[in-house]
């Protein structure tokens, strides 16, 4: 097998193997080191000797051996425990029985432990469940490797100090814990959802990784509506990637994207998933956002979009709690349905909202609506204000381009 093929295989098996090791031995950090060594051994041996019949079993055996060695040399008391446990079959499940999707979900829940800050949850998830190296995660987040190593090791310590155990949380804790997992997966996805290719190409891997992890979690809990909703939202959003940036021009807005370049299989999968989920599960914000993306995906152009349907979905979304970002989306949909003045009226109160008064998105939406309403001077001012407020380079390029168009440049 080619070394690329082996690498894919290892990546697929890594979280299962880690989950099995953690379940059997505890110690997320030592288990992870042992897994890395087993992966390294496999990467050198498999291309030459061939892939074993049970790749996961092979990895678990090699990592377990390594792990026992480490634990033995690190701690004599621990060694006695290991022997004790080994003499009592049934005390805990054997590590070399094939793990299931549930194990990966438990590992995800552990990495998204509430005692961690969001950046630490993201880092630990990518390291322990995603199987990315510390160097890869550091590169994706544009921070030094030493910083990322520090963040991951602190996160492990915190999880341990919080007394977290490798076990599915109780049914009454589970919804809250899954909500955190959803947030972390969505954070990873958005971090990778970069506008331009080229220097930040590696960030696309984060999007792919987020989708892969969400798929695993969805497989473990297929009836969890919001998990399915998030997966559908990611698929429908990621499908636009080939059309949302033009070389040297930064962002291409939704209205101007060449929709024939949208990735068809992802659109079909996302649409089927959200349609199925909406008819079965209790409604939630991720499902509604996916439904909005699905409506966009069905239209041949911005003008052909079923905007009244989108207005309806935004109204439902607002019932899940006040969120100024949702109001912005709602205002655009209302403007497309009832004209720009109706949209601008919805925006008005947001200018008094501290969270948004200095946010570039408010001015960007305002600029678009003023342009639609035939107020080029007002639009120009709002575009320039938005361009000054954003910290995103692709967004800034786009906003300046819109402003320049109004002045005839």
């Amino acid at each position, binding site marked *: 097998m080619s070394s690329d093929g082996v690498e894919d295989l290892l990546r697929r098996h890594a979280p299962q193997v880690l989950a099995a090791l953690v379940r059997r031995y505890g110690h997320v950090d030592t288990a992870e080191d042992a897994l890395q060594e087993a992966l390294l051994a496999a990467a050198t041996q498999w291309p030459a000797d061939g892939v074993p019949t049970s790749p996961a079993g092979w990895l678990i055996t090699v990592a377990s051996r390594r792990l026992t060695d480490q634990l033995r040399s690190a701690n004599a008391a621990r060694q006695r425990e290991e022997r004790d446990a080994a003499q009592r079959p049934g005390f805990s499940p054997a590590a070399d029985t094939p793990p299931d999707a549930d194990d990966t979900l438990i590992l995800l829940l552990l990495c998204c432990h509430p005692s961690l800050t969001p950046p630490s949850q993201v880092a630990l998830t990518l390291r322990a469940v995603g199987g990315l190296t510390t160097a890869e995660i550091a590169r994706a987040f544009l921070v030094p490797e030493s*910083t990322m190593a520090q963040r991951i090791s*602190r996160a492990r310590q915190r999880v341990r100090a919080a007394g977290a155990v490798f076990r599915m949380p109780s049914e009454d804790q589970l919804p809250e814990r899954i909500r955190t997992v959803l947030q972390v997966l969505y954070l990873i996805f958005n971090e990778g959802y970069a506008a331009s290719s080229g220097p930040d190409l590696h960030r696309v891997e984060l999007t792919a990784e987020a989708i892969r992890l969400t798929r695993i979690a969805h497989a473990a809990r297929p009836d969890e509506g919001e998990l399915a909703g998030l997966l559908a939202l990611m698929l429908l959003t990621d499908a636009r990637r080939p059309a949302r940036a033009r070389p040297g021009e930064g962002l291409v807005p939704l209205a101007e994207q060449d929709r024939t370049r949208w990735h068809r299989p992802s659109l079909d999968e996302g649409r089927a998933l959200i349609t199925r989920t909406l008819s079965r599960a209790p409604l939630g914000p991720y499902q509604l956002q996916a439904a909005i993306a699905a409506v966009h995906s069905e239209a041949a152009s911005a003008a052909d979009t079923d905007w009244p349907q989108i207005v309806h979905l935004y109204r439902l979304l607002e019932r899940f709690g006040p969120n100024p970002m949702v109001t912005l989306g709602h205002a655009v949909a209302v403007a497309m349905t009832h004209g720009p003045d109706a949209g601008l009226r919805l925006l008005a109160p947001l200018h008094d909202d501290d969270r948004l008064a200095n946010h570039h998105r408010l001015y960007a939406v305002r600029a678009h609506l003023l342009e639609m309403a035939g107020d080029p001077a007002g639009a120009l001012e709002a575009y320039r204000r938005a361009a000054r407020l*954003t*910290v995103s*380079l692709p967004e800034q390029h786009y906003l300046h381009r819109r402003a320049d168009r109004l002045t005839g440049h």
Partner: protein
Amino acid sequence: MKYLLLIYSNPENWEHPVFLRHPEFLAMPASERAALAHESEDLHREIRESGELLAGAALADPLTTRTVRVRDGSPTVTDGPYPEVKEHLAGYLLLDCDGPERAAEIAARIPDARFAAVEVHPIMALSGQEM
């Protein structure tokens, strides 16, 4: 989110940490001075261990600063920093933290914020959302 924190100070003698030389600091009771110095050390340990601190440096005395300008193709080099002010740039921290509130919280805990100021500059990112 990444932020650049610029730490300004107006010290009698340039020696780091600069705030230890500030006249207002020197006028404080000894116990308060010790407490503030401790807080500063704690802050640095905290952001180093949390992985929020990406980089940081203390800058040399403004006397050693040189400003380079190229006019009509010919470079000129002058002694001293660009702006002529009482407060000078004493050092910087490069952070990767949760958001503007956390960046401001860290800035407020830098002792020099009490005597001069700490500027918090968001850093531009390469990613963005379609509009």
